[in-house]
């Protein structure tokens, strides 16, 4: 199969491309910067650039679309441009090019605000209930993607929840940075139960979705390790693996949420482009339960996580011992 992978420089994107190469697929990658990946055809550019997109998608059997703007802060217009318009451009180009499978990486946050999610399935994306530019733009993009699903080009959305892995700069490094700086308090009791996805499993799920795509057009699936853990334990495991001292200290939930929104406002007004220490969305996310029903996902994709969290943290620990 000839497969275009967008956003292949991300931790998960690179892993997806490697898996496809390893099993003999012809892989084309499209991302803004050059990758050192070998054995792939490369296109450098943004998914918002219709010209480069149609070049990259020409002759492909399938598209795995991972390119996205994934930030906690930023201008709404930038999120719309990359996440919504970029997806729309890619979908149109894929259709024109006769692509027969389209896998869109999404996020569980497209269907929910900050409320507790306890053992629920994948609800439809709803831009009106999301919080934060990222989730809202991803929700709009997922709606576009699934609406574009046809018998000729089935589209499947995969929503991995909180991807963790070795070399992860999104979550692991942020946690470690803050822990080192001594500014990593627990929000509330820190005992809300949260699903995570070890990156290898997320990549496997993307590939499985590609294979099962013809039968699943128009559907969205939440992906996780199916091993929800308390926030407290997750942070303890990550800091432990990296040998970083961390002693849990608690900030009341309401204070954190209110504080988060003050900080966001300050960051907005002062146009700082570094990362705020806390957002109200982040505070809510970290103090409410988020874990999902994986039965339908596993059954439909014929996929189960190969790397347990225990093994993942062991790998993480090994990584930090060797670095």
């Amino acid at each position: 199969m000839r497969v275009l992978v967008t956003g292949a420089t991300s931790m998960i994107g690179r892993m997806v491309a490697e898996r496809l190469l390893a099993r003999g697929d012809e892989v084309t990658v499209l991302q803004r910067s050059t990758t050192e990946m070998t054995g792939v055809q490369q296109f450098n550019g943004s998914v918002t650039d219709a010209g480069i997109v149609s070049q990259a998608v020409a002759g492909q059997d399938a598209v795995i679309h991972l390119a996205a703007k994934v930030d906690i802060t930023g201008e709404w217009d930038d999120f719309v441009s990359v996440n919504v318009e970029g997806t729309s451009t890619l979908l149109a180009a894929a259709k024109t090019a006769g692509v027969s499978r389209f896998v869109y990486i999404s996020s569980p946050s497209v269907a929910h605000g900050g409320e507790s999610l306890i053992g629920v399935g994948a609800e439809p994306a709803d831009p009106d209930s999301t919080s934060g530019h990222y989730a809202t733009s991803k929700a709009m993009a997922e709606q576009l993607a699934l609406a574009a699903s046809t018998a000729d080009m089935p589209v499947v959305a995969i929503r991995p929840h909180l991807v963790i892995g070795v070399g992860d700069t999104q979550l692991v490094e942020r946690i470690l940075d803050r822990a080192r700086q001594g500014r990593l308090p627990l929000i509330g009791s820190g005992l809300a139960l949260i699903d995570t996805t070890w990156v290898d499993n997320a990549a496997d799920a993307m590939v499985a979705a590609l294979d099962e795509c013809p039968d699943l057009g128009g559907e969205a699936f939440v992906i996780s390790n199916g091993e929800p853990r308390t926030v407290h334990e997750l942070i303890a495991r990550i800091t432990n693996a990296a040998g970083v001292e961390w002693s849990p200290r608690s900030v009341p939930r309401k204070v954190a949420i209110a504080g988060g929104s003050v900080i966001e406002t300050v960051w907005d007004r002062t146009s700082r482009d570094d990362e705020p220490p806390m957002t109200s969305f982040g505070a809510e996310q970290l103090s409410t339960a988020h874990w999902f029903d994986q039965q339908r996902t596993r059954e439909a994709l014929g996929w189960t996580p190969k790397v347990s969290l225990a093994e993942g943290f062991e790998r993480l620990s090994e990584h930090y011992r060797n670095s």
Partner: protein
Amino acid sequence: MVAVGPTDPARLPPAGIDGLDPAWSRLVEVPLDGTTRTFHILDTHAERTESAQLTVLCVHGNPSWSFLWRNTLAQLPDGVRGVAVDHLNMGFSDRTGTVRRLADRIDDLCALTDELGITGPVVTIAHDWGGPISLGWAQRHVPQLRGVILTNTSVHQPEDASAPKIIRATRSRAALRRATVDTTAFITGAFEMSHPRLPKDIRKGFLAPYETADRREAIQTFVEDIPLEDDHPTAPTLDGVAAGCALLGRIPTLLLWGSRDLVFSDLYLHDLEARFPHADVHRWGHAGHFVGEDADVASAAVDWIRQLDVGTPPEPTETSGITTLLDPLRNEAIADKVAIVEMADAEPSITFGYLNSHIETTAAGLAHAGIEPGDRVALMIPPGIDMIATLFAIWRVGAVAVLVDGALKPKQMTAALNAAYPKHLIGITKALAAGRALRWPGRRISATPLSAIQKRVLGAEHSLVELRETALPLDQPLPPADDEAAIVFTSGSTGPSKGVRYCHTRLALQRDLIASLYGITSDDSLVAAFAPFALYGPLLGITSTVPDMDVSQPGSIETINLAEAVSAVNATMVFASPAALERLVDTAADARDYANALANVRTLLSAGAPVRASLLEDTKALFPNAVAHTPYGMTEALPVASISLPELIDAGTGPGVCVGRPAPGVEVQIDPIDSRLPGFGEIVVRAPHQRLSYDRLWHTTHKASQPAGWHRTGDVGRFDDDGRLWVGGRLGHVVWTATGPVGPVALEKAVEDLDDIYMAAVVGVGPVGNQQLVVVVERMLPTQKPALASLELIDAVRGVSDHDVVAVFDVSKLPVDRRHNSKIDRTAVAAWAESVLAGGPLRGLAKEA
């Protein structure tokens, strides 16, 4: 009849009434009063009336309408037609402008069923003042009547009941009009008697036909029609209906009752029970006047209707060849043998001869006090000679002992006594005082001598001592073996306390099974440190004693007191609870002076709650020559199985607690609860010595007796390849994970075997079918504050679990039951874990269940 009130033609209910299927609604014109009256009815089979094998005729009261029966109608089995009528002037039927008295309403109903052509079999179901109307109809249709269901109603004012206060209060004309017609107060007031409060949509449904004053006229005339006075025009009709109950003979009857009813209290239930002595009864202690809104009346009624054709299989009554309950202690040959040694007092021991004559005298006294065969007598005396002699005297006169666990909380005790409603209560001063304060039912007899003042204060009519002195010898045979002997209340640690009915025969069979299971012979002697077993010594004709201890606090036993008891009767057997054993093992050194006596004990029985093998092993320090056994069973069937310590060790670890092989004569089946786990499921037993039924809980009994004649234990488990039964926990505590149900006990045991763990609870969080396992532990040296367990402990727990454990908590105290101090209240732990893991605050777990 001349119209004197508002008129308004019948109509169909507006669309969108919650729970009401619009297809059921129809208007039926009936020739009445020399004209035509139109009824609104709900009819589940309006189009295919002829196909119904049975019609259930539903009759509402005041203020209400056919809406009341929506759930019952929805659940009726195939082939059963449901017809729920709106009385004239009520619901959506004609507002006729005429006053309908009870006699008219019975005529109205008969005319309606004639018009509907209901000629086949009928079961009536009625509520409130619909009761007399339905019974009036039933008495005119006996040949086609197959059953009668009555819910919170009355045909007669019980003697001790003051007229319903609410009715009296609203009977002054002006107040009545204001409440019933001018406003909806009478209707909404009736809602207030619902527990919990009715949801808004349901309240709207009840109010729908009564929106304007003109439409509410009949609510007033209905109330006025209640004959509170003898010369009331409806009094003769109601008396006729009451007398006519006898005409219904043995037509199957079901009484469904909400006891928190300000209008129809339990006294009305008891009045109906007397009129329908064969009736099945299910009483909900929490439910109010609109019992169908507070409790699942619909499925109780429907389940009862379902079994009508089949008929209840008669309970087996194999009585031939069984020694009756009281025979062994009446045996002349052992008259000189020591029966009971009292440890608490300096009292000398008593012989069986003395015990027997003491029972005879006490029985004579009870008869003298007016206790008759079949009367219920609550017995509230701590174990000891007095308790035993009085219990046996109750049995001797053919009365029924109501036995409520002294460890129940006062509220539970009151609920139990209100449910059983004993006619008499024999108790020590403490019980009489509590009974006074908590208004327990029953005429009081004091177990101890009282002064006149004390008697007055405590409300006691007699004391046992004076009854024994004044009574003439008892001239009355032993009661028949199949007569009811006891109502034993469950501990309430695994749900609300329920009364379990036993007859003499089944108690005797239980006694005989225990004797054969543990090889008890007349040479044995017994120390009972666990209250229920105090009865077995005398019943088996062997010498016994109860150690000096507070039996409601088994964990408070002093080792020295147990040793003294063992020594006093040269005990060969000791019966105790795990809580007592734990205490004894911890202080074993206190008994060193009694080493010889303790070495004489050959059988140790741990009963009442699951016990750890390690604890039984530790008892060797006290009883070096004893073989420890632990039976498995419940108030409803004990024992079901039994296992000895060597067998327990041999069984090793497995899917729960190994309870051994079924006892002789006991059949055990596993009813699978998930197709992915064949062989694992609810433990269902049948035994000659099992319960009769739950008292006044027909539906509970029905559901717990599937298949018919069996008892569903509510425990889950499986058999191993060697035929040993393993109990995995309570069905209600099963964790329903994505890969199937998980019983909590196996993992709890594995965690408890880890270092430093005293007790563990395994519970589920999340939606059923996708629950996750959570472990909560109490360490040997408990933590001060609840917290997430250390990563090391979390890893250790995951290491012994076959399933993912999402979180492990370390708490200062796990909630356990009062009686055994060892049954974990997993429901409370689960609620706590659910809240904490959803991001709620980390509070301590409740100290006690």
